[in-house]
C-alpha cells in the first residue's frame, strides 16, 4: 500500500518480485543493489538458507528521486520461490503496489513458471488484489542460456494482460533496470490517477 508522509515529503511504495525457484528474483535485487549509489539505497537484507536459497524474503529500499517535491522510495521485496514456501509468499504480498514476475526462460522450467504464475494469482486474490488491475511487469530472465524458449512463446503462455514484457539476463544486469523502471512507472501512474 502506497504510504505518503507529508511531514518527511516521501512517497513509499512496495514492489514484489515473484517467480519460481532459482528464476533470478534475488539476482535482480543484487544487481540493483550493486549498481545503485549508496546514498540512493539502503541495505540489502536477505533472509536465506545456508545454501543461499531465499528462506523468507529479500528486501531493499531504493530512492529514485523527487517528484513534485516528494522523494519517491520503493521498497523492493522478493519472495522465496521454492514451492513449499507458499505460506511465506502470501505474507510478503501484503500491501503490494506493483509486481514483477520473473520467468525462467529455460525449456525445462516452463511448467514451474506456469505453476508459479497461477500461485501468484491465487495468493493475490487471497489478499484481495486482482492481478488484472495491479501494476505488473513480466520479465523473461536467463535469455543468455542455450536451452531457452523463444520470447514470443513464453510471453504467449504467461502474459495475462498487456503488461510490459522485458527480456533480461539478471546475472549481468541486462533488463534489470528496464524491468524496475516499467513497474515503477505504472505504480506512480496509478498514484496520479488516485
Amino acid at each position, binding site marked *: *500500500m*502506497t*504510504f*505518503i*508522509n*507529508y*511531514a*518527511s515529503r516521501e512517497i*513509499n511504495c*512496495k514492489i514484489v518480485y515473484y517467480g519460481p525457484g532459482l528464476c533470478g528474483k534475488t539476482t535482480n535485487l543484487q544487481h540493483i543493489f550493486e549498481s545503485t549509489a549508496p546514498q540512493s539505497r*539502503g*541495505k540489502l*537484507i536477505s*533472509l536465506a538458507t545456508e545454501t543461499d536459497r531465499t528462506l*523468507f*524474503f529479500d*528486501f531493499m*529500499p531504493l530512492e*529514485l*528521486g523527487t*517528484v*513534485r*517535491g*516528494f522523494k*519517491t522510495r520503493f*521498497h523492493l521485496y522478493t519472495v522465496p520461490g521454492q514451492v513449499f514456501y507458499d*505460506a*511465506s509468499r*502470501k*505474507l*510478503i504480498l*501484503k*500491501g*503490494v*503496489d*506493483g509486481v514483477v514476475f520473473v520467468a525462467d526462460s529455460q525449456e525445462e522450467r516452463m511448467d514451474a513458471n506456469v505453476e508459479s504464475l497461477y500461485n501468484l494469482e491465487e495468493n493475490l486474490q487471497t489478499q484481495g*488484489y*486482482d492481478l488484472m*488491475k*495491479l*501494476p505488473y511487469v513480466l520479465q523473461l530472465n536467463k535469455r543468455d542460456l542455450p536451452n531457452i524458449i523463444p520470447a514470443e512463446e513464453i510471453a504467449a503462455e504467461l502474459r495475462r494482460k498487456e503488461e510490459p514484457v522485458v527480456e533480461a539476463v539478471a546475472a549481468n544486469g541486462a533488463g534489470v*533496470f528496464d524491468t524496475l*523502471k516499467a513497474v*515503477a*512507472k505504472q*505504480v*506512480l*501512474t*496509478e*498514484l*496520479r490517477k*488516485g
Partner: protein
Amino acid sequence: MADTPLLLRERQYHQIKAVLARLRLDSDAKLVFLVDKDGQEIASSGELGSIDTTSLASLAAGNVAATGGMAQLIGEKEFPTLSHEGERESIHISVIGRLLLIVVFDERSSLGLVKLRSRQVSQQLAAMVDEISKEEFSDEDSAFGEITDEDIDSLFQ
C-alpha cells in the same frame, strides 16, 4: 487494484511523534517506533544512532507476519505482543491493529515497564491511525494529479 494510499498529514505525524516521545520517556526506552504491518516506517523517537530503521521496520513486519501465520495455524488470531531479549538490548513489539509499536530498550528499563507503558498508549495510537486510514486525497494533494510522464521519466535518468 492496489489499496488506496495511506496519507499521513504533518499534523498527525507530529501528534504521533509526541506520543512516541512520551512513551520513550515513560518506559526509559532507547528507541520507540511505529511501523505499518506492511513494513513502512511511520514515525520514531529516540536514540537512532546507527540503527537502520528502514531495515528494522521491514524485518519487524516480517517477524510479526511470520508469527501471525504460526498463530493462525494453532487456532489463534495473532500474537498481540512479541519480545526478543538480547544480552544488552531487547525489543518489544505490540500489535495495534494494522500497526506495530516497537520499543528498543536496554538495562535502563525492563520488559514489564515497557509492556505496561506500551499498553497504556496503544488505544491512543490506534485512534490516531484509524483517523489516518480514513484520510483521502483532497485539494491540497493536487500535486499528485499533476505528475506528468516526464516527471516519472526523469527519475530514471
